[in-house]
């Protein structure tokens, strides 16, 4: 039980750190984002005092109110989902924009990460199990993929498979002309078709990391005493490989999930831009291009919370797989 409490406590602290960073960043930075945003907003329509106040809370201003009270008000606003108004998608609020785009990213990255993790772990397991096999000798080659910048690979794939071969669409999340978003088959089919190439990019770039880590741990695990015990017990090769070797070897990969996920998130944000994918990464890009600071802060917050959530899930899964964590913590 203490393990879960500790983990939960940690993520609460991390969440608080993210919120605080989000509050102070615009205040520390040079320039006056509030004036800039209000000028832009005013060009698009009337700016009510409420909008102005909420932006001031988010981005900081030289108001006479003590910073601590501003901080409390800010937390209160965020807790109520008030993240200001977006310039780019005026008059939409930041929260609405995020709610529209986040599902796309979570679906794309979630599926791509699971596929990449599953295939990478499986191949790494086999490569470590059969040392010196062709798969094992392939490992150094796969690091090439790890070193390719996501966006470059994305552009190359886009060029080869959309422009030259014209197998996949050149961008977007679904076919805007023929299908209507919602839970209907044509839309889902279209979304899968449009998402394949971005997902392929993420999988290709991230799979080598999982594979190499798993292969190295597999090699280390195979010299453990309990593997010899399992062999002497006359268990089948398959059972030794999965329940005895792989189950122990996968633990460090799960423990290092946070680091790898960081790379995947970073990579796919830019990848979305390349594929004009209607997710949160592209929203961040348009926010940057339009100096839409409220939207930018909102995107950062949402990405952070999603990443924290994913890490929390993996930590909980870890405790299920490794009984020792539950006792130790």
């Amino acid at each position: 039980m203490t393990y879960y409490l500790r983990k939960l406590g940690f993520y609460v602290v991390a969440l608080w750190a993210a919120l605080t960073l989000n509050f102070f960043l615009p205040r520390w930075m040079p320039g006056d984002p509030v004036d800039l945003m209000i000028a832009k907003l005013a060009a698009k329509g009337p700016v009510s005092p409420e909008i102005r106040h909420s932006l001031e809370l988010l981005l900081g201003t030289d108001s006479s109110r003590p910073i601590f009270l501003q901080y409390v008000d800010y937390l209160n606003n965020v807790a109520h989902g008030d993240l200001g108004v977006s310039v780019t998608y005026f008059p939409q609020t930041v929260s609405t924009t995020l709610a529209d785009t986040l599902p796309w990213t979570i679906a794309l990255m979630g599926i791509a990460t699971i596929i990449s993790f599953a295939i990478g772990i499986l191949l790494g397991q086999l490569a470590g199990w059969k040392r010196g096999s062709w798969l094992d000798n392939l490992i150094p080659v796969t690091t090439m993929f790890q070193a390719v910048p996501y966006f470059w690979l994305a552009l190359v794939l886009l060029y080869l498979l959309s422009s030259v071969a014209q197998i996949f669409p050149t961008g977007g999340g679904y076919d805007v002309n023929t299908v209507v978003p919602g839970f209907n088959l044509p839309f889902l089919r279209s979304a899968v078709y449009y998402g394949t190439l971005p997902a392929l990019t993420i999988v290709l770039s991230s799979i080598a990391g999982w594979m190499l880590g798993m292969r190295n741990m597999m090699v280390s695990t195979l010299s453990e005493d309990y593997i010899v015990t399992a062999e002497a017990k006359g268990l089948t090769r398959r059972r030794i490989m999965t329940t005895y070797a792989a189950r122990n070897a996968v633990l460090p990969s799960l423990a290092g999930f946070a680091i790898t996920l960081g790379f995947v998130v970073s990579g796919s944000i830019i990848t979305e831009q390349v594929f004009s994918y209607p997710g949160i990464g592209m929203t961040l890009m348009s926010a940057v291009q339009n100096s839409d600071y409220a939207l930018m802060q909102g995107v950062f917050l949402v990405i952070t919370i999603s990443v924290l959530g994913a890490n929390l899930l993996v930590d909980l899964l870890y405790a299920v797989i490794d009984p020792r964590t539950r006792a130790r913590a």
Partner: protein
Amino acid sequence: MSDVLTVTDFSVDYLGEQTVHAVRNVDLTLGRGEILGLAGESGCGKTTLAYGINRLLKPPAVITSGKAVLHSREGTDIDLGSLTGEELRAFRWDRVSMVFQGAMNSLNPVISIRAQLEDIFSTHRPAMSKADRRTRCGELLERVGVDRNRLKSYPHELSGGMRQRVMIAMAMALEPQIMIMDEPTTALDVVVQREILLEITRLRDELGFAVLFITHDLPLLLEISDRIAVMRAGELVELAPAAQLYNSPQHAYTKLLLGSFPSLTGERAAG
């Protein structure tokens, strides 16, 4: 006494830039229900010999000569060297089981004791019903003096002594003819060590399996074994009944080994 295992002219090499002859032309027999002690300093090839007999060696270790033949209860001879693939897998643990040195690391840390015990039955006795498996696992644990409730424990929740008892319970699971024990009590404190040794001799008397007991601790062997083999640099230098080896050692190395232990243990061994 009829024999259960005959090892003839057995040699193992470790290949490398300089080949190491780890076991050289060893001849050995193990009687039914006998406890045969295998003594020698660390690195003399005891463990390699044991692993070699059970075909557990991995390259760069290779068996260069000799063979090990098991004389089964049914009266057939099984040449361990000729077993391949599935036969070898099915043979292991069913005829020859092992208890390893590192009590701490011989059990898989991430699955429960029950799962590790049931593994044996579900692989070797696929016809056995689930309920039978459960009861059998409980019986095995109780037989080695561990509470049945411990089945749902994980290795890290057990003490070193208890882990080694669980290993012994596993080794008995299929009622093998031979149990190879490689330094089974080395990592344990003296009191626990004694309890485990008593347990092993008691179980041997009840079930009648033969034991190949490997240790560097000669006084301990004098106490529990019927016969003792002394190994040095891969060669078997002396093989004699325990009392005879103690009272009139033939080889200079045996004398040296006996001399290096305090004489305290001698009186008990002679008795």
